[in-house]
């Protein structure tokens, strides 16, 4: 029997889901769409959720599945017309008042392959354990570790400006296979 607690509260999770989605998609509107889709899917599949298990983990799992679907669709649509993140960087600008460093970080994050970005954000932003990140993304823990390692190395290169020279036209949206 699980006692009522804030960690189980639905509304209490929304700010957390929004922040994660915002960091994942780099865009406020896309983030809120993703959160809304997540809540709707939760609504459709409520019976599949084992009452008493971790509500937050379940919501993040649903969000992961939706995010992957969206990323795949985007790739199919982009098949003919590849978009470089740098070309659309002006659309990714954060609102005024956001420190430059955070904007750079967000922009570099978007240049990581989606599956690496996801693992990195689950482990850092959400402070989840590796096993939990593995359950949410539906991959073995070894895969989580190697994605995490690649994400960290690549993000570091991007932030230091080393990767832009090495891969000037890396189409970030094309990277999920």
């Amino acid at each position, binding site marked *: 029997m*699980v006692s009522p607690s*804030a960690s189980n509260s639905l509304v209490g999770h*929304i700010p957390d889901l929004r922040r994660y989605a915002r960091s994942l998609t780099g865009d406020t509107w896309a983030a*809120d769409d993703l959160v809304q889709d997540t809540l709707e899917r939760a609504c459709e599949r409520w019976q599949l959720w084992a*009452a008493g298990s971790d509500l937050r983990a379940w919501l993040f799992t649903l969000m992961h599945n939706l995010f992957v679907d969206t990323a795949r669709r985007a790739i199919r649509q982009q098949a003919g017309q590849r978009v470089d993140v740098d070309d659309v960087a002006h659309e990714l600008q954060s609102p005024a008042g956001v420190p430059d460093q955070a904007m750079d970080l967000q922009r570099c994050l978007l240049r990581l392959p989606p599956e690496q970005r996801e693992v990195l954000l689950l482990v850092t*932003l959400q402070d989840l354990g590796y096993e939990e990140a593995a359950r949410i993304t539906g991959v073995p823990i070894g895969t989580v570790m190697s994605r995490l390692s690649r994400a*960290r190395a690549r993000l570091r290169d991007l932030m230091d400006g080393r990767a832009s020279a090495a891969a000037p036209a890396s189409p970030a949206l094309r990277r999920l296979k």
Partner: protein
Amino acid sequence: MNEDSQLLPDDEAELHAYVDGRLDAAQRRSVEHRLAHDADAAERVRAWKQQRHALRTLHPEMLLEPVPAHLLQAALQLHERSSRFAQWQRWGGMAAAVLLAFGLGWGGNMQYQGMRARSAVTPAVLSFANQAVKAHAVYLPEVRHPVEVEAAQQQHLVQWLSKRLNRQLKVPNLSPAGYELVGGRLLPGDAGARAQFMYQNAAGERVTLYVGAVESPSAKGMDETSFRFTTEGGIASFYWVDQGFGYALAGKLPRQGLLVLAESVYKQL
């Protein structure tokens, strides 16, 4: 793709676990020993730690701004489904918690006021709120001794203050909103001892939660109030009384931001 299938060497996996705080004390010491002799690994760890901190503090505004109405609407639907489902399950566990949290949190605008007893604010309650703000103002700028007992000794802190206030206290967890517990202290109040818990975010901004018994004017008096808001000298405070016990959350935050935190506190008590 199958770069993913290559397993990470154990010694590198260990460095990640170190940065992410997933090691026990003995493992940490062993990694630290290794880092002292491996400049290359030490440099990577330093960069990853910095990166982790930057990621942890990405988009903090999303945690404090009000949830958009269409998302609350979607949550309401989910809640309705779940509560119907829960009736079969005789309100088993979680679903009831979802309902409870929903009832309390919906709209982020104190819709639940109607659910709670509305009552006149007595002088004792006003005095309580005033003392909470004063205590906040006194300890807010304190650098060396912001608290008497630090968060590291949370169990002791809770036991001690519960004993002094003659009531089992709970320390709400505000870390999802970015505020970590600093610790707590004991303070004098009108009706005996009061306690103050202090929280701080990554930017060093502090909020305090002030709790304690509030005297009731009559035997069957109003021992409950709705959520109330006050500002005094730039310090905003939400306060309420529940079963004769007062709570006041104070900080130099915009009203909406403080409300999110106050709701979170309320839900956890």
